Structures are given as structure tokens and as C-alpha cells.
């Protein structure tokens, strides 16, 4: 039997040459492929063959001009595939098949792209509304301490860039940034010293840290600390122990607080 020769030049060069003529058969094949949920490269030859034979049977009785090119194409597809099956080394058949597949794929991609472009505006409108759903940040689990998330170092530079871009660096710092530097919150050291002596007389030995319990601000803590120093200096209390755990004892249980210098006791911590 004579080997029929079909030239698919026009098909495989679909991208370069006039596409109009060949959109049809390609679309039909693609349509059949998508209906059967197949990948182009896995076209089951038997299915195509069935359809092809069916068409061949019917074509004389029906006016199927529109599908004639599909029939030619299907025939050729089957022909190439048969050659490939009969001889694995048929390079010509292989490369022709590759070209045909590539053309089909390119065509399919072009179709997909058209569809994608067609739907982007619908999606853009949805996004315009949907981007206003603001998620809250994850909250720490109750009792969770420390930090376990793993970051990329670039998160730091990104954060800095945000600070720069916001451009608020030159903004005046809030007043509370200067709290403890310029704030007026006087705690006279002398009052504190008297309070400490009273505490010691009433309770005997006291832990150093206990003096700071109930101190409500940095200024008050500083004043308490200065008062302790002042009392040590004038030998009115005795400080013992380590930096972690130290105790105070009053050396003159009945004495009055007497500042060593004039300005010492009258000092006020601002």
C-alpha cells in the first residue's frame, strides 16, 4: 500500500504564517482534547482513531466541510503516531510529531492567554473591595513567653526602609520620651531617708530590695537609692550581703536622721 503523504507545514508554522485558516482544526482538536481531559502529549491514539473512523464513515452522508481539515489532521496524527510505534528510530516522524505538538501547545497557550486577559478586569474589581478586609495579627497564646518565630535577616532592612519611607524621623518626640529626664516629679531624699529609718526601727533588718516595693516611678526609685547611699555615708545604717541579696540594719536605733553635709539631706531628686 502506498504511503500517503500529508504536508503539515502550514499547521506547524501556524505561529508565523496566516493563522486564520488553521485556527479551526486546531481548535477542534483542542476542544476534543479538553473534553476528554487530556494532555496534548498523551493523546490516546485509539480514541482519535475511533473518532476519525467514525468521521470517515459519516463524511459522505453529511456535509461536514467545516470539519474536513480536522479529519486530515487527525489522519496525519494517526499516521505519524503509527510510524513512531512501528519504528522507535523514525527521527523524521519524531521531530514532525514534536513540531505538531509544539504548534498545538503554542496555540493552546495563546487561547489561554486571551481568556486570562478577558477575566482580569472582573478580578481587579473584586480586589478593589476585598483588599479592605484587614486581618488582625496573631495574638500570643495565653502564657506564651519568649519569641519562637524564625525571621530572615532582610526583614530588618525592610523594616528600616519603612521607617525611612514614612519620613517621620524629624517629628518631635513625644513629651513622655523625656519623662525622667526633664519631668518634675520631686522626691526629697531626706523624706525617703526618714522613711527608711522608720521602716528599720519598726521592722528591724530589711532586705535592700524591699525598700523599692511600692515605688511608683523611676524618680522615686532613684530617690530611695540615693537615701540609702546617704544613710550609709553617715553611718546610720549597715549594708551587708551580695548584690543579689543584701540586708540593711539600723546602727543607731534611737538616733535621728542627721545629714552629714548641709546640702546632702536637703537634696531633692528631680
Amino acid at each position, binding site marked *: 500500500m502506498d504511503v500517503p503523504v500529508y504536508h503539515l507545514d502550514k499547521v506547524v508554522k501556524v505561529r508565523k504564517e496566516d493563522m486564520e485558516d488553521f485556527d479551526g482544526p486546531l481548535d477542534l482538536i483542542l476542544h476534543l482534547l479538553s473534553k476528554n481531559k487530556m494532555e496534548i502529549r498523551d493523546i490516546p491514539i485509539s480514541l482519535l482513531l475511533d473518532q476519525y473512523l467514525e468521521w470517515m464513515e459519516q463524511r459522505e452522508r453529511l456535509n461536514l466541510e467545516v470539519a474536513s481539515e480536522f479529519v486530515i489532521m487527525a489522519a496525519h496524527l494517526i499516521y505519524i503516531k503509527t510510524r513512531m510505534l512501528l519504528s522507535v528510530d523514525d527521527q523524521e516522524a519524531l521531530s514532525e510529531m514534536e513540531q505538531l505538538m509544539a504548534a498545538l501547545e503554542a496555540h493552546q497557550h495563546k487561547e489561554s492567554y486571551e*481568556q486570562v486577559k478577558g477575566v482580569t478586569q472582573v478580578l481587579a474589581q473584586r480586589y478593589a473591595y476585598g483588599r479592605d*478586609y*484587614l486581618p488582625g495579627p496573631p495574638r500570643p497564646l495565653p502564657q506564651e513567653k519568649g519569641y519562637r518565630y524564625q525571621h530572615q535577616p532582610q526583614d530588618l532592612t525592610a523594616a528600616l526602609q519603612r521607617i525611612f519611607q514614612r519620613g517621620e524621623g524629624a517629628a518631635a518626640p513625644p513629651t513622655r520620651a523625656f519623662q525622667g529626664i526633664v519631668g518634675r516629679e520631686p522626691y526629697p531624699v531626706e523624706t525617703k531617708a526618714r522613711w527608711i529609718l522608720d521602716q528599720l526601727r519598726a521592722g528591724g533588718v530589711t532586705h535592700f530590695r524591699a525598700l523599692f516595693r511600692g515605688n511608683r516611678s523611676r524618680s522615686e526609685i532613684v530617690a530611695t537609692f540615693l537615701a540609702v547611699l546617704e544613710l550609709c555615708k553617715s553611718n546610720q545604717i549597715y549594708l551587708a550581703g551580695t548584690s543579689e541579696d543584701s540586708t540593711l540594719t539600723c546602727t543607731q536605733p534611737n538616733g535621728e536622721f542627721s545629714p552629714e553635709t548641709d546640702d546632702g539631706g536637703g537634696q531633692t531628686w528631680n
Partner: protein
Amino acid sequence: MELKELEHTIEGILFAAGEPVPVGRMAATLEQDVETVDRLCRNLADEYRFDRRGMCLVRTEDCWQMCTAPEYADPIRQTLEHRKPPKLSQTALEVLTIVAYFQPVTRAYIEQIRGVDSSYTVGLLLERQLIEEAGRLAVPGRPMQFRTTHQFLRTFGLSSLDELPELPAPSQEGVQMTLDLESAIAKMQEEEAGEV
């Protein structure tokens, strides 16, 4: 646990999570079946919407997430100095659409469809958490595949991928061709039936 209490526990969970929480996980903790928990979430979501509260509950796939109600977005952003995320460019929308409809896809596939290099845009969408990595493809080079995220669904107002708008039909000629073919087939089948 009483129903109202369950509802408020769920509220607390969704508030603390800060991300979508699978219904199944809540059901397991609360020792309830998934349907009950899902119904309670829906109730809560309806209450929020009806009372026009500041938050709303959003369902994406099998998860629920607490978000701010979109109508308050402007004053919220203004107070917290958050920027409104910029509109997506046409390019970004195209790449995102390809991922959405054909997922999981590799970058090569996206580029085949668009015909241009798309690595920058893929990176951008990853950064904005609209797409995420979805494992490597088992072909030479093992390229990474991408899919859309819960954040994608949320920001596009979809509760699942099934709700994506239908892709427009292929080109005009293709449609005509398909119709012709289908009618021809139908006609053929009729004739066959008549012949029997």
C-alpha cells in the same frame, strides 16, 4: 458547653489566631462535630454583619478567619498608619489569574502563556502572599510550582476556587467551530438513531 459559650469560645479562637483556622481543628478542641462548629461560625458571621460590627468573619475553603469589616477600612488604616495596598498591575493580575485558574503551575508555564519573563511578578505575588509554593514538579530541573493562598481568596472575596468567575470562551472562531462541530455530531447521532 452551652451554645452561646461555644460561640464565644470560637470568637476568642478566631480573634487570637490572626489567620484562617480550619473548622476541623476547632471542632476537635471543642469536642463538637464539624457541622455544628461551622454553623456556629456562620451564626456569628451573620450577627457581626447584622449589627454592622467592626469585625467580620470570612470563610475561605474549610477555614474561618476574623477580619475587619471592609466598610471601616479607611479610618482604621488612617489611625494605624497602614498603607492601602496598591492596586495590582495588569501584569500582576495576569500572572495571578494564570496561577488561579491553572494551579499548580510552574513559572515556565506562566511564561509560556504570557510569552514574557515573569519572575519579578511571581516574586511580587509571593511577597504579598497572594500565591505560595506548592511543591516541585517531578521533571528534570524539578521546577517549583505555585498555587493561590487563603489570602488570595479573601482579598478577591471568594470562599473557594469554585467561585472563580468562569473564563470567557475562547476566540470567536473557536466558539463557532465548536458549535458547528457539536451540531454536526448531534445531527449525526440523530441520523444514526433513525437508522437503527
